[in-house]
């Protein structure tokens, strides 16, 4: 009996030092939003005392995981279609979808003074390669194609396209100098509201379909108070300010 008592004490001593009512939830996030979500989660954990485990991957991989029983409480997607599909597959809480961020697209070069407001480099074809995310997979990629279409440069540039599997890879191609320029997410070159380097053109939002990113509560999070609190926090002004400082826009009524 005493040994059991001792064991109990030992377990208590080793237990992570949590406050009595701290809960842990699991959240999946599309890779492009992961840095922002980590900052949001840190803020949420500080104010609520709960723990949020963040897993990041592409929206397509997370979809496959959730369909096959991944225990995530909530999902922050990079698009709207993946959450819609999860809802119609019965894997998400119906009606829980909300638009937490609107992505902004930028044409970016690692070289300073390479891209000017008139886009001469792009229009005259004075570049080796232009990187974009795969338009079939990434909303930022299909937005980039729409922009090139609107500028009437689709056929002129197509031979110079290099496609990343996602927006992170498009960024790598430009960052390493292998592509002179590329369409990337503004959030990738923005830290605390400042552009980190190179030259860029912020693509006007009317040149492409809005890149709406939706979040949703998944079935494991259906009755979770903490998940509900996190969603409420994401709608708060503090959260919106953090999301905007990473180069996204937010909606007034998500």
């Amino acid at each position, binding site marked *: 009996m005493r040994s059991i008592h001792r064991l109990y004490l030992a377990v208590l001593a080793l237990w992570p030092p949590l406050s009595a009512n701290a809960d842990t939830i699991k959240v999946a996030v599309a890779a492009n939003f992961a840095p922002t979500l980590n900052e949001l989660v840190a803020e949420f954990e500080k104010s609520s005392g709960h723990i949020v485990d963040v897993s990041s991957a592409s929206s*397509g991989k997370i979809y496959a995981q959730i369909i096959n029983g991944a225990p995530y409480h909530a999902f922050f997607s990079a698009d709207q279609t993946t959450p819609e599909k999860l809802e119609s597959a019965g894997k998400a809480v119906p009606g829980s979808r909300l638009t937490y961020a609107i992505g902004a697209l930028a044409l970016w070069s690692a070289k300073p003074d390479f891209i000017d407001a008139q886009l001469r480099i792009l229009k005259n074809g004075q570049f080796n390669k232009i990187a974009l995310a795969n338009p079939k997979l990434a909303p930022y990629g299909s937005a980039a194609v729409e922009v090139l279409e609107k500028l009437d440069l689709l056929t002129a540039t197509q031979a110079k396209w*290099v496609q990343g599997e996602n927006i992170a890879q498009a960024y790598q*191609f430009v960052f390493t100098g*292998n592509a002179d320029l590329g369409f990337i997410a503004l959030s990738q070159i923005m830290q605390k509201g400042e552009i980190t380097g190179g030259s860029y053109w912020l693509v006007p939002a009317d040149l492409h379909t809005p890149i709406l990113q939706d979040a949703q509560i998944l079935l494991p999070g259906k009755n979770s108070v903490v998940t509900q609190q996190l969603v409420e926090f994401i709608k708060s002004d503090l959260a919106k300010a953090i999301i905007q400082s990473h180069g996204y826009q937010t909606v007034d009524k998500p």
Partner: protein
Amino acid sequence: MFSDADIATIVLTLKLATIVTVLLLLIGTPIALWLARTRSWLKGPVSAIVAMPLVLPPTVLGFYLLVAMGPEGFVGKFTESIGLGTLPFTFWGLVVASVFYSMPFVVQPIHNAIEAIGTRPLEAAATLRAGPIDRFFSVVLPLAKPGFLTAAILGFAHTVGEFGVVLMIGGNIPGETRVVSVQIYDYVEALEYANAHRLAGALVMFSFATLLCLYLVHGRSALRRTRITND
């Protein structure tokens, strides 16, 4: 059964794997010969460099190849200075990366097979006045044939199955760098699972047939000598 786009990726993959295998045999054989015979202190470091791609995660390797072969990297500066431009996003860029990446799968079986021959048959040939080239073609090659076969099949199969490196340096250009593994990945990411299953099924059947050949062609003993685990 397959779309034109799928067939283009299959043709490109087979073309890549064939060229890479030929180059690997041409480059890997002298390295394996040297490793099997040398007493130089360089043997350890060279073996380690050849085996390195077994350790590094392919996407990591691919990322650093992208940096090295880019306009700021040392390989990129060299290829630009001799007028070839930079290698990423080209078919020949994939060839160079694949040769590096599949090297251990070719060098090690040949190395083991040559070492297993020992020095005596070669010494005997030398007493019969066979020169180094004659000795290679009439003694080493016939005796180490199973090793060469294993090397060729593994090099070919490993290049067909390559994904991470191609993903990083390829840029997914149809007919140039979009190989089968990347196409399957794209289908999965786009949630087009039926297309993915079809192409993946073909790849599974292909790899089973390849490995079955490996076993049938030269039995189990040669395999035991050159046991290598493909990732």
